[in-house]
């Protein structure tokens, strides 16, 4: 059985059997958890009155901050109350929790809860919603960040060309299909009970920690189980814990099972999003378009609390170079504090925001020099000057650089050159007709080839660890548990494949069990594209430990090696034990030279399932827990230098768009994507990740627009007004391919992570739009196109 082509998870999806949180059978005494949240963006809580609400039939309990033991949590720093106590800082901040027998009672009670909040229009006390106002008020979160290399000021002065600009990108709603959901209940135990939670979370360990801390429990009193999520995309990395804590509070206080499932509108209104950024830049370059110096000051809109904003900003800084060598740079960033829901992780984690800035600059340079943007990209690429321009602004060398191969191959396979010329001609013909007042089907076309290089590893080095538990049972069947959570990316399938490879057995003998803090302690979130890297590696280590015990057992029993001989490599090396096709065979290497294939001097060939049984009776330990930590990485925050990434995943995309000049609507005519995923762990799964990530990126740069009222309330809080890509928005032609790269030896089976990098390739649709408008409208020098480029923006730019 080829472990790289396993199909498994979707079998229960297509029959509707897959159980998500709200599909769990309700306990007969289960309570509905709901809450009242702040209706204003900023203010002081004067009074909370829930007397009337308590009288509502079916209401079992009403809880405020007073009911919480430690009322503080946070993705990194615990700066956020679980229930607001003295002040509120965004619309949607939970204040009062209602526990009721049914939804109607909860709704009724919510209406009767009165929260008196005093707001102020005084500067310094009034709400702040955007980056500019936050800058003006010096209202920031966390600490400023900076990465510097070379002498940017001096080189900017001597550069043949320089220009300054401002670039903005909007946020993005995750729109995971399953909203934030948790079921929590107390469970009896011999030496005290435990609080068990089923949560739709990418980070069960954090749910465990936040819940324990909030309720004043020890971590061993809380268990969090995650079977699967209906999508995560980063939105359930930090923020699932907050809502899990509200359900836990009710279960703990009432003693009854509690279920919290956010409605779609609430989920969109009150949870964090991808960060909007506003960046001020100055770039210096030569006549050919080679970048000599780059100065950027980024501001991200962090929302009300820190959440993961610090690490996200850092990744944005790290990715300002995308695929390009920048010899002199000073890249700085600050997190604007605003009275919006705390913004959070979202696929790419700041990377897309950083890359968008440099790609916009490249388009601007090309425009100013009247060149094809691809030529600008090519001459700035890493790896041109015999290794001299291989070092990033943070000091890491770009090894195993496939960028040139990727661009060369995709340029050819997509017929980029020919189509670029056709697009130019197309636009010219339309333009001429308009000039001559002829009837015209007003369309314009744009095409863009864009590479991406994305750093793999958590930039917080300590998170790059994981553990796995492998249990082999006496019939040869196996359960594997790791800290990886399954959200559709098929990490369970990849883990299953790795373990099946290690033992050389059919994957049907292996099950990956629901992720639980009970089995895997202190795990990292399934995030940063690293879920498979870390957890497959840990599972590989655990399985290998058992495999070695089984090998030793075979050598003792059948090759008659003594205990002492087993300790010596010299004796052991004479023998080979192979696990293949469900069988284990043992042969002597020395006799093997006679290469009589059939006999091969096997002294023993035994079925894996039989061997396991024998090993059990010989009292061999068939369970193992193992650890993995990513090697080679380090980063010094003081100098902002180091090697934060184990390796880079790279790729390139060519996107061609057609814009309707009358309406501003864009359609994607064709997309070609070429990715370097090392030796892919599972090609079909990985291509699925590429297609999905790309289209999510396309949504971010085109139709997904968040709009807020001047009070700070999200107006686009359902799919009626917030438009994620539809099946009709997919490219008319869509080719996805992988290159062969067997040089990425640092990661499990030579593979590379895939989750986030292709998201950034969606930006190629935006650069194609920008190029199209520029190409069509040559005097659009002040084309300040933002992300997303909505139909309205495009029409106004034309």
């Amino acid at each position: 059985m080829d472990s790289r082509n396993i199909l498994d998870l979707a079998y229960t999806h297509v029959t509707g059997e897959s159980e998500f949180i709200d599909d769990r059978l309700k306990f007969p005494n289960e309570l509905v958890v709901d809450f009242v949240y702040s209706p204003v963006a900023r203010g002081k809580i004067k009074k909370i009155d829930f007397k009337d609400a308590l009288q509502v039939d079916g209401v079992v309990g009403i809880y405020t901050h007073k009911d919480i033991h430690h009322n503080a949590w946070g993705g990194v720093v615990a700066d956020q109350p679980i229930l607001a106590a003295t002040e509120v800082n965004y619309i949607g901040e939970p204040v009062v929790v209602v526990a009721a027998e049914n939804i109607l009672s909860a709704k009724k009670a919510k209406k009767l809860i009165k929260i008196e909040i005093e707001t102020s229009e005084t500067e310094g006390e009034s709400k702040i919603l955007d980056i500019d106002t936050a800058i003006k008020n010096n209202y920031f979160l966390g600490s400023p960040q900076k990465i510097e290399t070379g002498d940017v000021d001096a080189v900017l002065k001597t550069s043949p060309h320089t220009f300054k600009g401002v670039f903005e990108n909007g946020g993005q709603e995750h729109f995971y299909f399953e909203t934030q959901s948790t079921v929590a209940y107390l469970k009896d135990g011999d030496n005290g009970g435990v609080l068990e939670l089923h949560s739709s979370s990418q980070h069960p360990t954090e749910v465990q920690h936040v819940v324990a801390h909030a309720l004043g429990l020890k971590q061993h009193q809380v268990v969090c189980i995650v079977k699967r999520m209906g999508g995560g995309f980063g939105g359930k990395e930090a923020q699932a814990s907050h809502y899990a804590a509200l359900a836990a509070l009710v279960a703990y206080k009432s003693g009854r099972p509690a279920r919290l499932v956010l409605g779609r509108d609430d989920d969109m209104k009150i949870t964090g999003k991808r960060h909007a950024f506003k960046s001020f830049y100055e770039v210096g370059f030569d006549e050919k378009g080679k970048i000599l110096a780059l100065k950027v000051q980024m501001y991200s809109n962090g929302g009300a609390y820190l959440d993961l904003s610090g690490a996200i900003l850092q990744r944005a800084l790290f990715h300002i170079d995308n695929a390009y060598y920048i010899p002199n740079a000073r890249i700085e960033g600050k997190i604007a504090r605003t009275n919006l829901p705390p913004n959070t992780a979202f696929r790419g984690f700041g990377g897309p925001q950083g890359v968008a800035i440099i790609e916009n600059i490249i388009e601007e340079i090309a425009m100013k020099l009247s060149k094809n943007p691809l030529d600008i990209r090519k001459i700035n690429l890493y790896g041109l000057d015999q290794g001299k321009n291989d070092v990033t602004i943070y000091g890491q060398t770009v090894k195993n650089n496939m960028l040139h191969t990727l661009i060369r191959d995709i340029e050819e396979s997509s017929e980029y050159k020919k189509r670029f010329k056709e697009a130019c001609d197309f636009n010219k013909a339309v333009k001429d007709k308009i000039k001559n007042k002829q009837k015209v089907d007003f369309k314009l076309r744009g095409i863009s080839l864009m590479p991406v290089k994305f750093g793999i590893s958590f930039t917080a080095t300590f998170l790059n660890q994981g553990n796995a538990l492998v249990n082999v049972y006496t019939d040869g069947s196996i359960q594997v548990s790791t800290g990886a959570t399954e959200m559709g990316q098929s990490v369970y399938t990849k883990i299953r494949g790795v373990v099946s490879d290690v033992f050389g057995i059919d994957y049907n003998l292996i099950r990956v069990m629901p992720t639980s803090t009970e089995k895997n302690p202190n795990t990292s979130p399934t995030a940063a594209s690293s879920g498979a890297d870390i957890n497959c590696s840990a599972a590989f280590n655990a399985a290998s430990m058992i495999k070695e015990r089984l090998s030793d057992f075979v050598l003792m029993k059948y090759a008659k090696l003594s205990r002492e001989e087993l300790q010596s490599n010299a004796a052991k090396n004479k023998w080979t034990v192979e696990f293949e096709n469900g069988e284990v065979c043992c042969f002597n290497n020395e006799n093997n030279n006679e290469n009589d294939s059939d006999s091969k001097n096997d002294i023993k060939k035994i079925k894996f399932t039989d061997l396991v049984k024998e090993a059990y009776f010989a009292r061999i330990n068939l369970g193992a827990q193992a650890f993995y930590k990513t090697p080679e990485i380090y980063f010094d925050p003081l100098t902002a230098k180091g090697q934060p990434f184990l390796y880079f995943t790279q790729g390139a995309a060519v996107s061609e768009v057609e814009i309707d000049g009358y309406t501003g609507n864009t359609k994607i005519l064709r997309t070609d994507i070429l990715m370097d995923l090392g030796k892919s762990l599972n090609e079909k799964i990985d291509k699925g990740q590429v297609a999905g990530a790309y289209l999510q990126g396309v949504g971010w740069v085109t139709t997904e627009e968040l709009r807020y009222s001047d009070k700070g309330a999200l107006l686009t809080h359902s799919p009626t007004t917030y438009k994620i890509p539809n099946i009709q928005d997919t490219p008319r032609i869509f080719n996805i391919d992988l290159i062969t790269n067997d040089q990425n030896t640092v990661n499990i089976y030579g593979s590379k992570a895939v989750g986030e990098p292709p998201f950034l390739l969606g930006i190629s649709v935006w650069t194609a739009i920008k190029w199209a408008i520029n190409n069509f409208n040559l005097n659009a020098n002040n084309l300040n196109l933002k992300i997303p480029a909505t139909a309205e923006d495009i029409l106004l730019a034309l």
Partner: protein
Amino acid sequence: MNTNMKNRDYVLLYVNGERKIVKGENIFLTMTDYLRDILHLTGTKIVCAEGDCGACTVLKASISYSSSSDSDSDSDSKFKFEAVNSCIASVHLFDCSQVVTVEGLRGLLKRPLSEKREDERILNPIQNALVTEHGSQCGFCTPGIALTMTEMFVNTDNNNANNDCNKKSKNKNIDEKEIKNCLTGNLCRCTGYQGIINAGLHVANDKNLLEVAKKSLDVYQKCEIYKDLEQHKNIPIIIESASKNFYAPTDIHEAINFKVEGIKADEKTYVFSSATDLGVQINKDFIAPTRILSLNSISNLYEIKEESRNGVEGIILGAKVSLSRLQNFVRKKIPELYNFLFVFASPQIKNMGTIVGNVANASPIGDTLPFLLVMDATLIIQGQNHSKNHEREVKITEFFKGYKKYDLAENELITHIFIPIVELSNGAVLKLYKVSKRKDLDISTINAAYLIKFNNSDNKIEKINISYGGVAATPLRLKKTENYLLGKVLDQNTVDETIKLISSEISPISDVRGHASYRNQLAINLFKKFYCEL
């Protein structure tokens, strides 16, 4: 069973082939809640609760109420399954229908609980292809996708039989375009849709799989079920629960009487035709109807036919005619409308929603309204005058009186729309446009309709009707612009003048779908686009 009973106090439906009698409060549940909470069929998911994502898709097949001869109600005792959004539809709207959920797609095949390997499960070919082509990642949208796609394959044969044009060879009639059109109402956030499209193509391109796929729902084509429902369809339903009054009469006059009683009792009567908008408003707690009138059992509201009215050739259709049936009906008669309806909402909404509902909802941005306005459609309204039922007609151009206000009294119901098509037969050209942030399954930023006819000899404009939606509190006819254009030759200079007039006649507002200036620009541009496309 007593089929002569005067009224029933229950709703009758079949879920995955099982007979269900639903009484009391439960008939007001959304179908999704009924499936998930009462029947514990949790494969049907709720994502948006407003019919905008398709995760709640179920297949619905009603028995035929219509005696008219439109092409899609061909056979007398065959169920035609259609994908609908179960999250915005109350259980009572499924009266005399069959429902198939994702659990029912496994049909009557039993999967043994024993040590079956998962890749040996018995699935229908579409389900299987969704697995093998990686059309499912997190799985939350998957049940809806599997059902919608199954419907597509099952119904392709029907389409084929009725529609000769635009179809390729028989077993190749499902292509990428068709798949995309069918799945417009199913969002997926994970896959980028490639695996889903490939799954469809995989089945479509394999003759054997295709044949099996087409029979996916055959297990539900049962005469005894049809007969059972048929025996119930003419029995009115009256349900008085603790908090609500429900009435589903079989006669329009009874319906009016129920409304009149409501006025007397000072209680608002909510009219449920397909309730694709009311369902959303209930879910979002905007309304909580206590007095409900369902039009579901009134058979003459299902008719759609060509008719000559006061000597004018046209189409007449009843209040229960779904947009899908309309779309099929006008495929050859009004191809522009047929094509336009592809960007109207989703198949799921079109299978439930009606054009009369689009009118009665009176949104300034209702997508069929500019069309009806330029066609000079007439509404046929049933009402009660001095305790006597009577019918009156209102021109749609005079119907809308202000934002969500119109010429319809509390004791009246729109029963039919008459759409004159005589101009189209006489050489007039109809053009329909819609602009939205996302092309498909989106509410329009603005929409427009133009009906134009040139004089054959001098090429001057002989007739011109222009209507815009989303540029004022009601959909508008642009009378000044029309008057200006009459008798003119349409050239660049005329266009330049026209767009000035258009701007002067509209007064768009800014909202989340676009700023006023953008809407104004779009109104102008759509006319330019119309001009070039003529």
